[in-house]
């Protein structure tokens, strides 16, 4: 084997490099979950769709194609498995209910940085590079008042592409949409603050330590129901 052959990158390492590797791209990290033949099909199809987009103004078929493959990439059971889960019926109509919001989007108020891993002013790049450190850590809950000026909203999360959340926090933390529905009377009350944390965290600690503490905190707010947005 020559040195040139030995250093040649394989297709497998190429596709996997989008998952926290030399080409990290959180929009395409699902490629790591695909076998090589399927990843091959994905790239061929993607290029075909991009070619078809050259002469048209409508790019929605490109987005639809990527969504289709994200679904294929994640179509495997992972995490905690339960045969059955608890179910609590809503006691009164939503229009009379106090509604809470909790997301794993990684939002926080500027000036109230949870300083994950003890780092001040951690950048999104560092959060992405250190995602495996995050996965060992207990998550921290950020409280966000519902009347927060948009310019004070900040987001950082090494587990997903935050571009959409940065452009419009309602894509993952729909405070403004909920407030509109509250004003129209469709929701009794949107409870302030709402909550966000970085979902890339130790799931075991979340379940056994952090979760029970958060539940106790949330119970004090007398919610009638909660909207949960895993991101």
């Amino acid at each position: 084997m020559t040195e040139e052959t030995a250093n040649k990158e394989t297709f497998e390492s190429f596709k996997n490099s989008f998952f926290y590797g030399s080409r990290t791209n959180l929009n395409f990290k699902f490629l790591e979950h695909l076998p090589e033949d399927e990843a091959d099909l994905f790239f061929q199809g993607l290029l075909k769709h991009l070619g078809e987009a050259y002469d048209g103004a409508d790019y929605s078929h490109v987005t639809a194609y990527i969504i289709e493959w994200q679904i294929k990439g994640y179509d495997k059971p992972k995490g905690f498995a339960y045969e059955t889960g608890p179910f609590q019926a809503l006691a009164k109509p939503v229009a009379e209910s106090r509604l809470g919001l909790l997301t794993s989007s990684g939002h926080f108020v500027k000036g109230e940085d949870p300083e994950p891993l003890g780092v001040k002013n951690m950048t999104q790049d560092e959060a992405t590079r250190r995602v495996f450190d995050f996965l060992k850590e207990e998550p921290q809950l950020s409280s966000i008042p519902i009347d927060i000026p948009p310019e004070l909203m900040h987001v950082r999360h090494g587990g997903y592409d935050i571009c959409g959340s940065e452009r419009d926090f309602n894509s993952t933390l729909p405070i403004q949409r909920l407030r509109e529905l509250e004003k129209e009377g469709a929701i009794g009350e949107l409870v302030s603050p709402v909550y966000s944390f970085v979902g890339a965290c130790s799931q075991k600690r979340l379940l056994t330590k952090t979760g029970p503490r958060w539940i106790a905190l949330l119970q004090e707010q007398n919610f009638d129901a909660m909207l949960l947005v895993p991101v």
Partner: protein
Amino acid sequence: MLEDVGIPTVIVAVQAFRRRLETMSVPRALLTPHLMGRPIGRPGDREQQRMVIQAALKLLETADQGGTLIDFKA
């Protein structure tokens, strides 16, 4: 865990999370046909986001058993 202490919940997540949510036997979930990282809808698409929230709130009211996962249709 919230349901265990009497707080009903509804989840909004992208369809890519379907299998994981099924495995976890979550109480109610609305699955949206969106890119990962944008479960409520495209940035700036107020109408789409609004329809997703309305569908989630309806599911909160109408689901009568755990493990109710439905697809959002615009």
